[in-house]
């Protein structure tokens, strides 16, 4: 039980001292914190005290808007701070995702947390270290350049008896200095003029420090968003059918009168929810409440093929031209050999194992929220808007939920909890049921990708024309969350582009065009086919299309697919180096795909693919078997090479890569959202299967560490090349080109027969 006995903001205002009641590290710490500087948009980033505080015992408390999503990223951020300040890792405490104390560093997403947020914290720490050395210089009567720091103790070089600890220099006091900070969110540049430590001297960064959050996750002691409770708390559940939302024309409350402990049926706009004294009562009430829904104005589409038709036939509202050089049309028309194909990527689920959960306590014009959002400030602002109160009246405290892979950027459940709490005037905890989450998860968008490539008489690629037509993220950051749309708030725009990476732009072709078209999808919040960013958004589909095409050309030109790629991977040596290293690790020998087909029923193949996701370079080699009688594909092994610049935590990175690979295999072989005109059909794990232990391949990982570079993202780039590598391996094994995900036995059989 977490009991909030004192308002942190009140405390902060009155004394400047903050009691941290819940600790990510499991230990309570009293720290001196920011005091002034609280603004509507979180803490003032130009006040050093907004970023960190040093207590008398030398504990460093870091106030960060970045949150742990189960990837280990907060451990990596703590390593960066410990390194820059020269304190031991165990002295760093991360106070994460509290909108009253954190700087708004933007949402935690897109594998940008270390790359951007890490650099912000590194520079704030460098500024703090500089100030601490200045203070030590005066106290020890020695110039700064004669000082050194070990484990948070400053001493004079050559005279180690002259020393003073950070805690004694500053403990219990504020830095009271300003630093520079320009820009907002991810793009904020913090104190760039302050020199940071030379990576050659790193002692903590680059080490596989065990994750601080894991031990309690194996014992039940870790507090997830699902575990937070406060005295007097009630339980809420939502009532949303898995089809187009309409207005409830009647709600028969007598249908649940036999369920003991029901407190209230909450109705507002098209929103229906139930609040009860116990969780079980709320679950039963939501299940049994008889609601008659009016005829929806928006009809569900008849099935996935209608979505692809829609993508094909609907005018784009914005084309992002990634590259356009030479004259691809003319070159294509003059090509000796032409390759043209269309690739299909379905709507897919984020598939959180734990449905989202939030606790809201709305009293008058104030609200307190505990939730697992990826964007604490986005959720805070959405709730403020929905409740029509100022953002500063909403205090959001982050508590980690289940792994979300982009899903909790749209933190819908917090709004559900806030609406129901307001209706009953008490704190309400809401968790979505499995069918709620399967249906109303804002899904990874469907994509329809066409590629045209042409080759001259000598076998050189002379034309490349790549067009991705994707649904947008209808639930993007500028649009309201689900409950807000149900009470009448309208989308402000058609949604964000589903990325533009992976269209073959890593290759150097003379005549080359890569375009990502954003197809409007204006039905925001109205049906289960809502969309948002899903891990490495859009890149999987584009790399599936581009890397399948490259493979097709290589095979047709009787070239080894690795050698063929290297001919055109000339723009960045990091991508060619990772491909070569990965092929070597996989024991790749030059071999034209399909040149030695086996004749039995069970046939083996291997395939390769490369990708550049946000400047992290990856390559994958897949080894698979196909049962030609059933069409069943077994992935035996994935070898994956990964170059994300400076590696902060090698084992943490490997954990992420392993996870990305397995999720990629799952999405490639198994996953597709199914529906018809009556609603969504897969509402549980039987009808939407994901990878299981018996389907897990062996994994081998190659890391290239580049200490001279800045750290880049590791949370999602490695998911990108795997689908294409599997597709190319299926071709090698069977001669069948896969054009549509997932590679179900039925689709593989049809491709073999085609």
């Amino acid at each position, binding site marked *: 039980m977490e009991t909030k006995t004192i308002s942190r903001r009140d405390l902060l205002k009155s004394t400047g001292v903050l009691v941290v009641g819940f600790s990510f590290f499991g230990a309570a710490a009293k720290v001196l914190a920011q005091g002034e500087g609280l603004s509507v948009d979180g803490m003032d980033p130009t006040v050093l005290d907004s970023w960190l505080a040093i207590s008398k015992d030398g504990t460093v408390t870091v106030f960060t808007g970045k949150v742990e999503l189960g990837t280990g990223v907060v451990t990596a951020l703590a390593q960066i701070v410990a390194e820059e300040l020269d304190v031991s890792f165990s002295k760093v405490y991360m106070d994460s995702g509290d909108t009253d104390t954190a700087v708004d560093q933007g949402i935690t997403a897109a594998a940008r947390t270390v790359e951007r947020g890490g650099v912000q914290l590194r520079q704030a720490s460098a500024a703090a270290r500089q100030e601490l050395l200045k203070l030590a210089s005066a106290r020890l009567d020695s110039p700064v350049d004669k000082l050194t720091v070990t484990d948070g103790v400053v001493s004079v070089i050559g005279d180690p008896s002259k020393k003073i600890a950070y805690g004694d220099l500053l403990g219990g006091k504020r830095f009271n200095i300003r630093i520079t900070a320009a820009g907002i969110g991810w793009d904020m540049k913090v104190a760039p003029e302050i020199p940071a430590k030379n990576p050659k001297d790193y002692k903590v960064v680059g080490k596989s420090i065990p994750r601080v959050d894991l031990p309690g996750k*194996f014992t039940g002691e870790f507090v997830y968003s699902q575990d937070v409770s406060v005295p007097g708390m009630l339980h809420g559940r939502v009532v949303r059918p898995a089809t187009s939302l309409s207005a409830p024309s009647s709600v028969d409350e007598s249908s649940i009168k036999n369920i*003991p402990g029901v407190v209230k049926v909450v109705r507002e706009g098209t929103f229906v929810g139930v609040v009860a004294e116990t969780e079980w009562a709320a679950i039963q009430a939501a299940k049994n409440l008889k609601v008659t829904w009016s005829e929806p104005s928006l009809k569900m589409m008849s099935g996935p093929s209608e979505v692809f038709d829609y993508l094909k036939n609907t005018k784009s509202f914005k084309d992002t031209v990634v590259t356009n050089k030479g004259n691809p049309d003319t070159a294509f028309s003059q090509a000796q050999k032409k390759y043209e194909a269309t690739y299909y990527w379905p709507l897919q689920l984020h598939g959180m194992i734990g449905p989202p959960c939030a606790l809201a306590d709305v009293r008058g014009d104030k609200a307190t929220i505990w939730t697992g959002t990826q964007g604490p400030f986005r959720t805070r602002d959405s709730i403020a808007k929905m409740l029509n109160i100022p953002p500063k009246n909403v205090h959001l405290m982050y508590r980690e939920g289940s792994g979300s892979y982009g899903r909790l950027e749209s933190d819908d459940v917090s709004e559900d909890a806030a609406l129901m709490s307001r209706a009953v005037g008490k704190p309400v905890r809401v968790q979505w049921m499995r069918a709620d989450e399967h249906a109303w998860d804002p899904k990874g968008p469907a994509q329809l990708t066409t590629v045209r490539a042409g080759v001259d008489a000598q076998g050189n690629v002379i034309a490349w024309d790549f067009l991705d037509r994707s649904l947008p993220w209808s639930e993007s950051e500028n649009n309201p969350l689900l409950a807000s749309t149900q009470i009448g708030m309208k989308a402000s725009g058609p949604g964000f582009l589903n990325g533009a990476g992976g269209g073959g732009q890593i290759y150097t072709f003379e005549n080359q065009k890569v375009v990502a078209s954003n197809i409007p999808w204006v039905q925001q919040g109205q049906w289960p086919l809502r969309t948002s960013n899903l891990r490495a958004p859009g890149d999987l589909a584009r790399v599936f299309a581009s890397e399948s095409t490259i493979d097709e050309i290589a095979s047709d030109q009787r070239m080894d697919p690795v050698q063929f790629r290297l001919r055109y991977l000339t723009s960045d040596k990091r991508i060619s180096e990772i491909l070569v290293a990965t092929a070597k690790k996989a024991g790749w020998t030059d071999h034209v795909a399909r040149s030695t087909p086996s004749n039995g029923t069970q046939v083996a193949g291997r395939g390769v693919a490369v990708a550049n996701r946000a400047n992290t370079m990856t390559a994958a080699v897949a080894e698979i078997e196909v049962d030609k009688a059933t069409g069943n594909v077994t992935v035996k092994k994935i070898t994956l090479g990964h170059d994300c610049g400076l590696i902060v935590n090698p084992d943490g990175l490997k954990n992420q890569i392993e996870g990305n690979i397995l999720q990629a295999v799952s999405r490639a072989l198994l996953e597709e959202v199914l529906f018809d005109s009556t609603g969504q059909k897969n509402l549980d794990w039987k009808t939407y299967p994901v990878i299981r232990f018996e389907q897990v391949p062996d994994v081998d990982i190659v890391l290239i560490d580049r200490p001279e570079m800045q750290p880049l993202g590791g949370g999602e780039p490695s998911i990108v090349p795997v689908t294409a590598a599997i597709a190319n391996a299926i071709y090698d094994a069977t001669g069948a080109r896969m054009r549509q995900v997932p590679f179900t036995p039925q689709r593989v059989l049809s491709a073999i027969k085609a």
Partner: protein
Amino acid sequence: MARISLKVNGKSRVVDVDPTTPLLYVLRDNLELHGPRFGCGLGQCGACTVIVDGATMRSCQHTAAEVQNKTITTLEGLGSVAHPHPIQAAFVEEQAAQCGYCMNGMVMGAKFLLDTNPHPTVADIKKSMNSFICRCGTHLRIIRAIQRVANSSVKA
């Protein structure tokens, strides 16, 4: 409402609940044992797993009333961060989680497997753990953690 007596983690507990309440919500909400988690409520994912009289049980699929007078062990009954069970220690050694939401099922599934088959092969592990879902893709680390316990001399 009904008074129900439960033997959980070696202690007798009495709760006053609607007798149709699944064990999961009694453990989480009445007894504040948060190891077992709600994942699907359908018995499909394993996040709510407990061990009852030596066998795994999906606690979302059985009422508390059904398990009166039986011996219930939850994740908390195995060990703590300060005093971890060898399986929990092995999961830490292998850093065998990402978000960790499914870990209750993974650790309890491993406990059942190792109690019934102390030296499982990788194929045995995959087969026995196949009904537990992990979305983060930590399967390989979980397999290594189970092997680590099986290969050590410590009794699981």
